[in-house]
Structure formats: structure tokens, C-alpha cells
């Protein structure tokens, strides 16, 4: 009986020890957009200057220039993005049904997750929402063809 009590007490103490690493949080507070050629369907390098409505920033594409991470405004239900180059300019307006705020660990920053992503308006040839939740496990949220 004494042994059982000690084992149970040990398990109880161990179960209380949570060691969290902020980098292992799968929640993501931006969407991932990737660009494709409308003719061949292959990845397409871009040279756009990308901005968003109500944002003071310009967003830089990934190293391979075929995708970009774009923030969504948690204070609004939609966010509009502008893609400008010397020869062309496009717009993309995204909506989201819900913004979840979670605490992964009290030592980490709050986590924001956007759910129910959808396209409201766009001026590219075609867009497809392939992942409607922002999450590290999802490599692409929106595919843009032009």
C-alpha cells in the first residue's frame, strides 16, 4: 500500500512539470501565400512591392521569391493587400470568420490563429484557398495564379 501511495505521488508531481518551448507553438498569426504561373502551374518568382491596408509596413517575399507571409488585421474581419510592380498591380482582399487568441505558455507571447480564411475580392487571374486556418502545420493558405 505504501509503495502504491509513493508511486502515485511521484506520478502526480511529474505530471505537473510542463516544459514548453515557444518555438514549438503551431499557432501562426499570418497567412502564407504562394504564386504560380497560370499557364504551366509551376511556382512563379515575383518582384512585387506588397503592402496592406492600414499597415505601415512593406512585406518581403520568402528567399526563393515564390511566396510571402502576410499578416491579417485582428481588429477587422477583412484585410486588403496590394501587389505592385513597375508593369502591373493586383489586389487581394481576404476575410476570416474568427481570430482565436491562446496562451501556449505564460512565458511566450500570446498566439493568434485566424480561422475560416476566404477570398472576398481579387484581381489576379485566379486564387485558391487551400488552407483556411493559419498554422505552422499548413505550408500554404492561398495559391495565386497569374
Amino acid at each position: 500500500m505504501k509503495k502504491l501511495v509513493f508511486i502515485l505521488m511521484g506520478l502526480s508531481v511529474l505530471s505537473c512539470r510542463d516544459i514548453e518551448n515557444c518555438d514549438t507553438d503551431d499557432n501562426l498569426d499570418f497567412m502564407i501565400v504562394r504564386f504560380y504561373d497560370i499557364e504551366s502551374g509551376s511556382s512563379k518568382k515575383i518582384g512585387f512591392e506588397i503592402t496592406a491596408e492600414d499597415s505601415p509596413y512593406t512585406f518581403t517575399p520568402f528567399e526563393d521569391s515564390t511566396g510571402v507571409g502576410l499578416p491579417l488585421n485582428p481588429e477587422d474581419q477583412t484585410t486588403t493587400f496590394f501587389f505592385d510592380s513597375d508593369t502591373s498591380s493586383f489586389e487581394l482582399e481576404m476575410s476570416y470568420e474568427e481570430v482565436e487568441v491562446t496562451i501556449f505558455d505564460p512565458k511566450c507571447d500570446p498566439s493568434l490563429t485566424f480561422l475560416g480564411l476566404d477570398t472576398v475580392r481579387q484581381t489576379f487571374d485566379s486564387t485558391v484557398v487551400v488552407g483556411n486556418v493559419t498554422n505552422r502545420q499548413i505550408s500554404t493558405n492561398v495559391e495565386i495564379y497569374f
Partner: protein
Amino acid sequence: MWRSTFSLIFLVACLAAVGQQQTPLKKKEKVDFRPHELKVGFNAIRSGRSLSGSDYTSHEIETAIGIHLYNVVFDYGVEEHQRGETFDYRNTGNYFRAGIDRNFTKDKASGNVLSLGLRYARANFEDQMIFIADQGFGEQTYSLTNDDLSARWLEVAFGLRGKVVSNLYMGFTMRWQFSRKINGEGDLKTYDIPGFGKTSRQNSTAFDYYLMWRLPFRD
């Protein structure tokens, strides 16, 4: 051969019948279901933690009524939690647990308890979170609140209470908490449930230590 076998079976059956007639029927003791004791106490771990830290306050009382081999247990607690380094998260509420324990000690007059039981638990609480962040739209202050949260869960409780002096008893309860459900969450996902712990676990374990005063109704 058949005749001898039949005779043997008949003999065994007759002996069994005679044996049954000769065994006197044991008189069943009448079970007394009147309460024989009341224990009232508090959770020393929760109150101790409240005194040692400023970001956590919790107090819990427990009452247990002894009836025959069982204890009818009721816990009520209040809890206030503050968390976060880059944000301010506050969670305030109360909870109760109600259930029945089976006491496995042989001498119920001693007041000692070695028990295993089931609990239904429920918490009513609210939480709020304030943080300043730049989500790509300039630095802004975000404030989220859940005003009317409730949660329920079930527990398997293993308990031990021993007499210290006079009518003062001490002991622990180990819990396995499961079947948890939260109602009333908005955009902010709650991090704590009073009486349960972190919501990151669907099932949880807990260890509580109690100091209790026994009021025997009769010995």
C-alpha cells in the same frame, strides 16, 4: 456400472441436502445508514500557495459526512490566477465538487479514511487578457474578455485521512480529472479552469492536502 454411478450421485445429493439443513443461517447485521460523523476542513496546499505568491490566490473547504462505509463529500473553492510575462491574463472564479467515496478502513469509529470515490465538478469563472503587440498594423493594445465561462468535469479520487490529535485529521486526495467541457468561450481561449488547472490538458491529475476537524455524532 450405471446402477453404482446413480447410487453414488444420489448419495452425494442426499449428503448435500442434509449438510444444508444442518448449517444454521447466518443472521445478517442490520446496516445503519444514519450519519456517524462530519468532517470539515480546508485545502492546505491551496491556502499555503496563496500566502507564498502574489499571482495566485485560492482557498477550498471540504465537508465529508460519514454514512456506513461511505463518505458523502462536498468541496467548494475560490481561485484567482494572474499569468504572463508579455501579457496580462487574469482568471477568477469558483468551483465545487460533489461525490461519494467508499471507505476501506475497517474501524469506522477511528475516523481514519482510506477511500476511492467519484466526483462531479463544476466551475463558474471569467477571464481576461490584455496585451500590446504589433501584428503588422502598428502597435496596438488588444483586450479580450470572457464574462460568463463555465466548465464541468469528472474525477476519480483516492484519499487518505489519518488522526493527528484529538479530532484533528490530516491527509491527501489524489485526483484523476477527465471528461472536461468548457462553455462560453469567445475569441480568447481560456488557459485555466478554477479547481481543474490548465486547459492545455484534456485530462489532468491533482494532489491536495487537507486539514480536517471531525465531529462524531456517535461511536
